[in-house]
């Protein structure tokens, strides 16, 4: 039992390291190669956990090797379009100017229900509204609406303002984040002034956010905390 526990801990570390090595892409939508690697890693880890007759190295080695292959394949894919097409395929257009490409649907083995589900998830209920619908290499469907059916933007109604970065968390749980303060182009003097005017101090603040336009919000800690 103790051996299983220790092996589980070691394998957990190896799998965590492997997932980190594969990068953040892994956590989002999976490409075919990434999906294969993920399934294989989970199977290998399970086998090594279950059977203590199998040396731990027989589990660790293929996991690391698969992840390394995956990282190298994605790096080569980044450098070579041909290789990328070979590994991940290419996006396919299934609706063009409101007309379904039935041959492409058959090729992709996509049913009409699949298409309608994807459109509805994008807030579209009629194929006629669609300028382009593209099946991406990870199987998701991207939809571009016809101009007449697109919602009006602020620019369309001439109310667009200057682009502004989202507010940053300057103080979290009584801790100042210097880099966040710098990222909104302010310094400690500005912060001290704000805090003095608000009659508070950094340790008393639960959260403070501010943006580049110097708009800020302060949430003080509850008294019981």
């Amino acid at each position, binding site marked *: 039992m103790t051996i299983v526990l220790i092996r589980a801990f070691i394998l957990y570390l190896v799998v965590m390291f492997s997932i980190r090595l594969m990068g953040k892409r892994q956590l989002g939508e999976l490409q075919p190669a990434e999906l294969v690697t993920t399934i294989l890693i989970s199977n290998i880890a399970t086998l090594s956990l279950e059977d203590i007759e199998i040396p731990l190295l027989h589990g660790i080695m293929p996991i690391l090797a698969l992840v*390394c292959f995956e990282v190298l394949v994605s790096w080569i894919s980044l450098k070579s379009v041909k290789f990328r097409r070979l590994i991940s395929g290419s996006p396919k257009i299934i609706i063009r100017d409101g007309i379904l490409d039935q041959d492409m649907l058959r090729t992709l083995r996509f049913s009409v229900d699949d298409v309608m589900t994807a459109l509805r998830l994008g807030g579209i209920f009629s194929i006629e509204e669609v300028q382009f619908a593209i099946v991406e290499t990870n199987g998701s469907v991207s939809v571009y609406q016809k101009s007449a059916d697109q919602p009006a933007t602020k620019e369309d109604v001439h109310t667009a303002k200057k682009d502004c970065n989202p507010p940053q968390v300057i103080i979290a749980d009584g801790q100042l984040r210097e880099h966040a303060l710098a990222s909104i182009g302010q310094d400690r003097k500005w912060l001290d002034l704000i805090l003095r005017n608000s009659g508070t101090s950094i340790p008393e603040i639960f959260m403070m956010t501010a943006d580049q336009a110097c708009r800020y919000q302060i949430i003080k800690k509850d008294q019981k905390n």
Partner: protein
Amino acid sequence: MNHCKASVGILIGLILLCISSLMILKSKSETYLAIIDQLETTFQTGSIEDTLVVYDKLESELEKYHNITGLFVNGTELDEMREIVSSLKPMILANQKNTSAEIARLRMLVQNLYEEELPEFWNIL
């Protein structure tokens, strides 16, 4: 790019580990096979005392062999070797005829253990 460099580094490390594991297995197997041959020869001469001395050597070497090769070889085969070695002593003491056959089986197991680890066509497939 850092991930790529790390991957290449890990792959090189894994290849080196594979090569060194083969070399260790080869060297350990050769040492062990030499003791098995010595046991066989001594047993053929008919001296039980001398055979038992070699047997003790074989038994202690098995522990070292098991500890090292157990890192990269399936435990089932090593357990089978242990089983044969433990059954040899009473057979030697009783001067049984099938002792040679058991020694030959042990030799075959040790040889196979190394040969099965070699990256050869039939092993890979």
